């Protein structure tokens, strides 16, 4: 094999790696953005995992019934919509518990994870006659090829042949950045997370802003869960999400609660998962036991958090329920 074809083979594989990376990253980007909204407003959201589970479930069910109603290629879009609504309900529970009743935010998040895991599997059994998973969907998202751009050698396949959800996620990164840092609402949201009583003094409705933030976080995380169902698994069962929400949280922290940083971190973790397949193509890495490759994203997360990035600074009022009567 001459040098040129070796380079060609490597670049082809590498563009496949980037393509797969984007597939894995998409759900993480959604989850991390959701986390940013909630936590920037001062509400810890450890329930991202549960919100993603509920979104994944609702998208599978919504898309299934849309298929039954002969909506054809529109059914995955219906799935996205139902995912947002269903996750919103769970986010509302979190908001009521933490903002109105001042429950501990971490515990409430744990409850969301518990409830989402129980409710979704329960409903799957109720809706699908005791089956452990939803019916496999026929219509899921296919990869879009962006005209012209997708024809560029290697780069076209790597970046411009992707699921519509990936493009939505990337657009939402920009939107989130704009909303948080360039609009009055964003400024209020951040001020509520940094110093709620100061924000209250200048007339910002702390609780209302926090409610909106937590609900947005539910919608985003729901989309993240739906992404996994509608692009990768085509059905929902108890292990569809299996920890992606926690990784999304880690991406949020690694990205220092900034949408662009979180996107970078999500892509990094997505690549760690994609590497799993990539590593098996080379002689030197072929013999690494599978378990170590599975471990990789989690080990990298810890190393990254413990090492190079420096300490991440969380919003100052994170985790504190706002109590106007407190000095």
């Amino acid at each position, binding site marked *: 094999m001459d040098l040129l074809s070796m380079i060609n083979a490597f670049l082809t594989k590498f563009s496949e790696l980037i393509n797969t990376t984007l597939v894995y990253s998409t759900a993480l980007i959604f989850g991390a953005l959701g986390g940013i909204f909630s936590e920037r407003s001062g509400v810890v959201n450890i329930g991202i995992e549960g919100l993603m589970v509920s979104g994944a479930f609702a998208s599978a069910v919504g898309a299934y019934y849309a298929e039954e109603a002969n909506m054809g290629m529109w059914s995955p879009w219906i799935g996205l919509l139902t995912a947002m609504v269903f996750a919103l309900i769970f986010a509302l529970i979190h908001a009521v*518990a933490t903002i109105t009743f001042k*429950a501990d935010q*971490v*515990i409430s998040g744990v409850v969301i994870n*518990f409830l989402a895991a129980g409710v979704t599997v329960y409903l799957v059994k109720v809706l699908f006659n005791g089956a452990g998973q939803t019916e496999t969907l026929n219509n899921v998202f296919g990869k879009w090829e962006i005209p012209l751009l997708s024809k560029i050698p290697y780069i076209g396949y790597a970046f411009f042949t992707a699921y519509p959800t990936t493009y939505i996620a990337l657009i939402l990164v920009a939107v989130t950045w704009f909303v948080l840092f360039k609009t009055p609402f964003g400024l209020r949201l951040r001020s509520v997370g940094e110093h709620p009583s100061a924000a209250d003094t200048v007339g910002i409705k702390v609780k209302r802003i926090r409610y909106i933030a937590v609900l947005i976080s539910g919608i985003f995380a729901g989309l993240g869960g739906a992404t996994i169902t509608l692009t990768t698994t085509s059905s929902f069962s108890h292990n569809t999400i299996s920890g992606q929400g926690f990784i999304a949280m*880690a991406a949020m922290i690694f990205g220092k609660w900034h949408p662009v940083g979180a996107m970078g971190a999500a892509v990094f973790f997505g690549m760690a998962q994609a590497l799993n397949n990539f590593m098996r193509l080379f002689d030197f890495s072929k013999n690494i*036991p599978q378990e170590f490759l599975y471990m990789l994203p*989690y080990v990298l997360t810890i190393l990254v*958090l413990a090492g190079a990035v420096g300490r991440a600074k969380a919003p100052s009022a994170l985790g504190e329920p706002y109590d106007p009567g407190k000095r």
Partner: protein
Amino acid sequence: MNKVVRVFTSDSAINPIVAIILGLLFGALVMLAGGYNPIEAYSSLFARIFGSSYDIGEAIRAITPLILTGLSVAFAFRTGLFNIGAEGQVVMGMTGATLIGVKVTGLPWIIHAPLAVIVGALFGGLWGAIAGYLKAKRGVNEVITTIMLNWIALFLSNYIVNAFLLEPKQQRSYMIQDSASLSIDWLSNLLNHARVHWGTLIALLAAVAFYIILMKTKQGFELRAVGHNIDAAKYAGMNVNRNMIKAMFISGIFAGLAGVFEILGVFHYQVVAAASPGYGFDGVAVSLLGANNPVGIVLGAALFGGLTYGSAGMSFGADVPPEIIRIVIGSVIFFVATQGIVKWILIPFYGKRKKERAS
């Protein structure tokens, strides 16, 4: 995080009881909505728990690991840390116990079994200490690290079982040597082969140890001081970093023991698992319900372990999906955490009492 500790150390016993009742009611509502009969479901649940001597033995088996993971989570909470990684520590405890139980041969029971217990406990303890170290020295949030360590533990133990302990053509390790078993054979025979083991006794002793370590030793005083007010502890000259690592180490030992007894007392082998068993996450629920105090934890574990064991009876007897118990447990924690709701519901009762006093 301090708020967590405060919720856990509140001494009110009324709130948990009301929360349990509300949780069961909420579960009943969900069952009604799903078209099931909640009365039938709950009665088949309790029939399963107390149905026969076998069931009682098995329910105790299901309760035992929850006592230990509950103690584990609570111990960390008392020190101001949230150990959501009891799950991974359980898995590491299993692995340590299986390694010693399978690989070491020719020892008498009196040495082999305790050795397996100690090594398993140390595996769990060290796994917890990693998170403690990262928190103390690198400032990494222990919630994130312990979640990550849960997954790493799962895959690491799968690797160890696959590479060193695998029984050919099985998805599990070799059986442990008889000399490492903690099963109580005579009692097991008495209870129709329910898998009862000495671990239950040790779990109860662990609850006593929990109390003594925290409340009766200088170490425990320092640990609690760090949990109450980290700055005050620092100015009083306590080594906060060392206390964090120590707390996570002890917390990990409790969780590790839960895993140890699952291997040495119940299954006698370790499976290559796709997901971890979930005792650690239930431990969070147990410690919350038990208000962080050892007696409360034993009671909380009895409730959750009993419900979880009985839920199998629900799907069998009343055809209700056993996941409903997850919903019940989740809503019980919800009601404990949002004490505001419980207090709001109790207002009429408090009002009546006041009126009676006035008249």
